[in-house]
């Protein structure tokens, strides 16, 4: 009985530990760094954690010692020494050292970029993104996804349309707030190609929790190829279904809010849809670019995401929704 209890207790602890550790891994974790900046923050976190554990143990050990091991009076000289040494000098030096260590990282994170500038504006509740390669005179516009090359420092210039938001890709680096009317800046140097997740990290309204994005890290070669494709105009509709979808897109007024470069649609209220189908997610990181999710989104926009500016097109027939989705799926 006792043994089986101990056994299941051990299993429970092992399971809890596994779950806790699993929570630390993954594509939205500051504990699995995929870039230089995130590695620094990771080290900082470990150092702070170890420091905190040592302090906690030492302090509680001391309490234990003076209440249980040696509860009798102390000679005043010893007590004074303990208070001055352990209560004044030790914490001052320790906190000062940790402060210096943390501060010494800040200049790196403010380092200059290597050429590429990415401007991100937080909207309600999505991300407007512009790529400005070195020497560019006009941006390459996209939305709801950040792609960055490995091995170089990209400069991110951030602001917001109406509310305060915060830009955070834990696997790549620190957090930076985004303000209406004020540009903030950070630089990131990713190292490991992969798809990571970013999330708005400042409560900004009803759809704050639904305001995420994918951060795709590519090798410099892949990145250059992607950026070239992204700069190109949209592919024309290739099937009769998609052609009907394009007509609907025009007739339903979608183009008043959405731009599709290479067409007459040049709306600026919502995300640029020119290469929607090459994005990893739909609706700012909450769904996928599939037939099912697209029709769902168009027909039930505000049920899915409260208070977005886009109306729900719930009067459209299933066939019409499918045509629209077919058009959008062709925007590779």
């Amino acid at each position, binding site marked *: 009985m006792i043994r089986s209890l101990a056994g299941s207790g051990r299993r429970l602890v092992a399971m809890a530990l596994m779950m806790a550790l699993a929570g630390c891994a993954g594509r939205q974790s500051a504990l699995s760094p995929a870039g230089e900046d995130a590695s620094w923050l990771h080290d900082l976190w470990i150092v702070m954690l170890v420091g905190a554990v040592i302090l906690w143990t030492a302090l509680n050990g001391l309490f234990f010692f003076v209440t249980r091991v040696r509860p009798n009076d102390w000679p005043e000289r010893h007590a004074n020494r303990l208070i001055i040494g352990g209560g004044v000098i030790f914490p001052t030096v320790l906190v000062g050292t940790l402060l*210096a260590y943390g501060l010494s990282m800040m200049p790196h994170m403010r380092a200059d970029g290597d050429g590429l500038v990415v401007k991100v504006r937080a909207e309600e509740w999505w991300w407007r993104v512009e790529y400005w390669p070195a020497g560019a005179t006009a941006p390459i516009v996209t939305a709801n996804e950040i792609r960055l090359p490995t091995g170089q420092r990209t400069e991110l210039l951030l602001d917001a349309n109406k509310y305060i938001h915060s830009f955070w890709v834990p696997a790549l680096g620190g957090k930076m707030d985004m303000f209406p009317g004020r540009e903030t800046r950070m630089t990131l140097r990713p190292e490991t190609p992969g798809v990571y997740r970013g999330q708005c990290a400042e409560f900004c309204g009803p759809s704050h929790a639904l305001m995420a994005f994918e951060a795709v890290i590519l090798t410099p070669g892949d990145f250059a190829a992607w950026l070239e494709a992204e700069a190109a105009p949209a592919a024309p509709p290739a099937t009769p279904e998609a052609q009907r979808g394009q007509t609907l897109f025009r007739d339903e007024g979608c183009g008043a809010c959405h731009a599709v470069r290479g067409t007459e649609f040049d709306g600026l209220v919502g995300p640029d849809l020119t290469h929607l189908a090459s994005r990893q997610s739909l609706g700012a990181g909450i769904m996928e670019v599939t037939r099912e999710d697209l029709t769902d989104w168009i027909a039930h926009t505000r049920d899915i995401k409260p208070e977005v500016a886009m109306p729900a097109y719930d009067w459209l027939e299933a066939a019409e929704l499918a045509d629209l989705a077919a058009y959008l799926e062709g925007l590779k």
Partner: protein
Amino acid sequence: MTDPKTQTGSRQDEFEFFEESNALWWITLAPTTWAVHFVLAYGGTAVWCAKFGETQGVTVARLSIAGLTVLALGFIGWLGWRSVRRWKPRQNDMEDLSHPEGRHEFLGHAAFLLCIISAIGVVYVAMPALFITTCR
């Protein structure tokens, strides 16, 4: 000047009250220095960076913070020294400070402790200027 100890009771009380209310002001001086240093360092840097940061960098602000820090620490050091003289640690043990008669010495002791924490505060406030070399 007449010795206040020889005055009648109520005048003596008045004098002590005057002295101790001064000492109460006295113990706020070090934390106030810390606060003023904080506001000047942070506010000054913000203004400098907003007005001249683009063209002139942050060196002037960093040097000013260094100067302010030396001034603040010097002043707090002087306050600390005066406070120890009030406290007279060699003539009073902790027990003496806990009686009403030890009020004067107690306030010296408290002022001295506040000098220590204020000096630490001033150093921590100034430390970013040691590491951060741009306005960004």
